[in-house]
């Protein structure tokens, strides 16, 4: 562009479609350099617009929408699977909880052994002789045998 430096912006605006101001129009009538620059700028602006339009007109892949729908279906299936998974977890949870409670409250082996060691048969008292206590005592010197307290 070989126009006058003073008119650079005004020429660009004019090339991009703005109406030329009276001052610029008067200048263009007497300045072949600026008139030429305006013609060139208009041609370049048209090329830029064409290139930008072409750039924007890139077509998407043909099967793009089908791929979206396939992914939508896949997601739906995954959601359904997830629903069943959570339902199964939900129904098993009470069973597991009850099992844990029963396990923690089970009678321990130690308790059973203690109970057995302290347990006495009801007939054991009947089998004990009336003087059984005397058999387990040693009489002391000078002490009457039958006056002893068990």
């Amino acid at each position, binding site marked *: 562009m070989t126009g006058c430096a003073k008119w650079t912006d005004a020429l660009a605006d004019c090339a991009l479609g703005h109406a030329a101001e009276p001052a610029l129009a008067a200048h263009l009538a007497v300045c072949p350099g600026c008139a030429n620059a305006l013609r060139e700028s208009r041609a370049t602006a048209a090329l830029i617009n064409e290139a930008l339009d072409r750039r924007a007109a890139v077509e998407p892949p043909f099967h793009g929408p089908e791929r979206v729908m396939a992914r*939508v279906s896949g997601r739906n299936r995954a959601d359904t699977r997830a629903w069943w998974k959570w339902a199964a977890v939900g129904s098993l949870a009470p069973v597991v909880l009850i099992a844990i409670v029963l396990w923690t409250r089970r009678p321990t082996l130690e308790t059973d052994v203690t109970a057995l060691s302290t347990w006495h048969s009801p007939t054991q008292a009947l089998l004990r002789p009336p003087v059984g206590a005397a058999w387990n005592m040693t009489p002391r010197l000078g002490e009457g045998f039958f006056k002893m307290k068990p």
Partner: protein
Amino acid sequence: MPEPGSDRADFERLMRESYRLVYQIAYSVLSNAADAEEVTQDTFLTAYEKIGSLRDAKRFRPWVARAGWRLALNRRRGATRAMGRDSAWMACRPASEDPEAQASGREFEARLQALVDLLPEKLRAVVLLIGIEEMDVRTVSQILKIPEGTVRSRLHLARRQLLREVTR
């Protein structure tokens, strides 16, 4: 989430109507066909999950366009591989051109691409979106959530800057 059946069919219809637009928006941000496709897919999957919050089906198109724009911007900011721009769009030149003209055209477009990348984010967004066939100033203003006058002024600034750089 839509129930399988009619809602899903409605979604598919809306998606097919907007797929091209969302892809082109994503491509305008990412300049990479594979990334644009991935972002488009993600946009519609997100839209499928959230479509229940959309009361009016007429709002689907701008809604999904904005969602695609935001996802693409996030991808551009976050991904390093997105910097691998492709030149798929340069292959769209008219077949009637002679090889020399095609070569110089590609050179021009590559230079323009580099200049667009150098634009400030705000200007680049407007100039790329407005190039999309179905976009007008109003739609761009809805996507970017800025007034229409701001769209116009940014578009003019961006074009002027590009013109200045190209003719330098």
